[in-house]
């Protein structure tokens, strides 16, 4: 009856070691296993980037385009007249804004496209049937995203220095907490985008890029809240990016460490991240309940 198969084993009991069959392959400790899983995901996405030249656009071409666009805008308006110091400050605001904006952009895009890559390659079901936890998947993608972020922001900073003699490092160590806040904001937006993709499928992919075009004008990247139409100012004031970029501009002006703005940005970021995690957990529940995984298998 059973070609190639022996007679029924009848479930012969096997000796167990740490819950696994004795004589099975050696495993890492339970404490190390989550880190190994995150590393596996990060490494997988490194291969994707290396073997997909078009993916390098996100970390090379677009940062370069943004720097030239906003840098040249600043230079043009500076040449229209007015006090030289104000004009110079305007150029510096635009260039520091675009450098810091790419922290948010690269952090968000890396995680969102990392998740999309698993749906495009129909790998999601295979991943879900391993010990990998959902947050480990996100963390693994974000881990490699840090490398992309360094590349993308590095390109912007180098281009700003090479083309417009703007050295972002002169803003000092005060830049580090601003970058930390913006990094967290980028990840929080990406969790929200991933949640939408879980719920609405690949149709929500456009949001990965589109949402950034909403955050950019409202998030105080290049100008303070007061520059916006009055109707939009309350929304802008609620966004943590608005306060983080305001802190960045104070550093450009050579002012003291802007702890007040940083504190507002940090509180807003914690709330946004918490809300994004709750939203993601909710969408994941809907995803499992409605069997949406079959969209990707």
């Amino acid at each position, binding site marked *: *009856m*059973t*070609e*190639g*198969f*022996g007679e*029924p*084993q*009848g*479930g*012969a*009991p*096997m000796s167990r070691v740490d*819950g*696994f*069959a004795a004589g*099975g*392959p*050696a*495993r*890492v400790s339970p404490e190390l*296993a989550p880190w*190994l*899983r995150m*590393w*596996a*995901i990060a*490494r*997988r996405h490194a*291969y*994707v980037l290396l*073997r*997909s030249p078009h993916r390098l656009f996100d970390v090379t071409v677009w940062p370069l385009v943004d720097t030239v666009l906003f840098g040249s805008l600043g230079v043009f308006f500076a040449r229209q007249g007015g006090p030289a110091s104000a004009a110079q400050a305007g150029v510096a605001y635009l260039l520091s804004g675009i450098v810091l904006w790419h922290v948010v952009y690269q952090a968000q895009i890396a995680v969102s496209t990392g998740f999309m890559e698993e749906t495009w*390659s*129909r*790998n999601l*079901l*295979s*991943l*879900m*049937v*391993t*010990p*990998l*936890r959902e947050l480990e998947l996100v963390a693994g993608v974000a881990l490699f995203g840090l490398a992309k972020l360094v590349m993308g922001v590095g390109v912007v900073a180098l281009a700003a220095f090479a083309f417009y003699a703007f050295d972002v490092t002169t803003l000092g160590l005060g830049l580090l907490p601003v970058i930390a806040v913006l990094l967290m904001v980028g990840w929080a937006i990406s969790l929200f985008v991933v949640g939408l993709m879980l719920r609405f499928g690949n149709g929500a992919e456009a949001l990965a890029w589109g949402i950034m075009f909403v955050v950019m004008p409202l998030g105080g990247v290049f100008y303070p809240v007061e520059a916006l139409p009055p109707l939009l100012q309350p929304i802008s004031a609620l966004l943590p990016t608005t306060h983080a970029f305001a802190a960045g501009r104070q550093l450009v002006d050579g002012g003291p460490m802007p702890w007040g703005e940083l504190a507002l940005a940090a509180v807003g970021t914690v709330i946004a991240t918490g809300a994004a995690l709750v939203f993601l957990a909710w969408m994941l*529940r809907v995803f*499992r*309940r*409605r*069997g949406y*995984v*079959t969209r990707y*298998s």
Partner: protein
Amino acid sequence: MSDVLRARGLLKTYRRGRAVDGVDLTVRRGERVALLGPNGAGKTTTLLMCLGVVEPDGGTIEIAGHRLPGGRSAAMAHVGFAAGYLPLPERLRVGEYLRMFGQLYGLADPETQARRGLERFDILHLARAMGTELSSGQKTLVGIVKSTLHDPELLVLDEPTASLDPDVARRVRTGLAALCEERGTALLVTSHNMLEVERIAQRVVFLSAGRVVADGPPDQVAARFGRDDLEEVFLHLASQRQASEHTEGLRP
């Protein structure tokens, strides 16, 4: 005799209706079970619920002593899964793909396990090939190697030999046979190839309209329906299902 998979009273309703209606499914250690039924019988939904991918509306699932959904991560360390319809990710070589999954399963030396797995199915030469360069048969074999890297207690295969030529299908069966013999791995297989099921499975569970309609050794199940083999049982259940759908369609 202990159970590696124990599902009780599984229920699942989608918008289009009830997909799974009170299914009980048990797979004992080392046992080879086939989950069968016509299209729409509830096989895939049952399988996905047992794998923790789809949340049941009711019922309980336990794998290797871990209760889902809370123990999903721990349970999946004991499960391997492959499906004939799943592609290999692009932009990864076979060796890289297997190493990644070995690491996801927590293996200390995934490369060695990958090499052993590729040797078992006689495809070691594919280790450096890109996933996109493989034939469908080679992809299936690599998928099965991936699912067995960690010597799982339960191997779940969804249509493992669909669209394979007879030679590759035989290699799949032979490789699985060796694995089951050596490691006492339990198998839960779905297939529309009844001849293959008769060769592989010790026990078959037939689903129809989301319910278990037969559960036992293949010859006994066939006899219970007064048929000569499983293919005839399958055709009988499929025709019943079609007749039922037709009747429902005629209702005012």
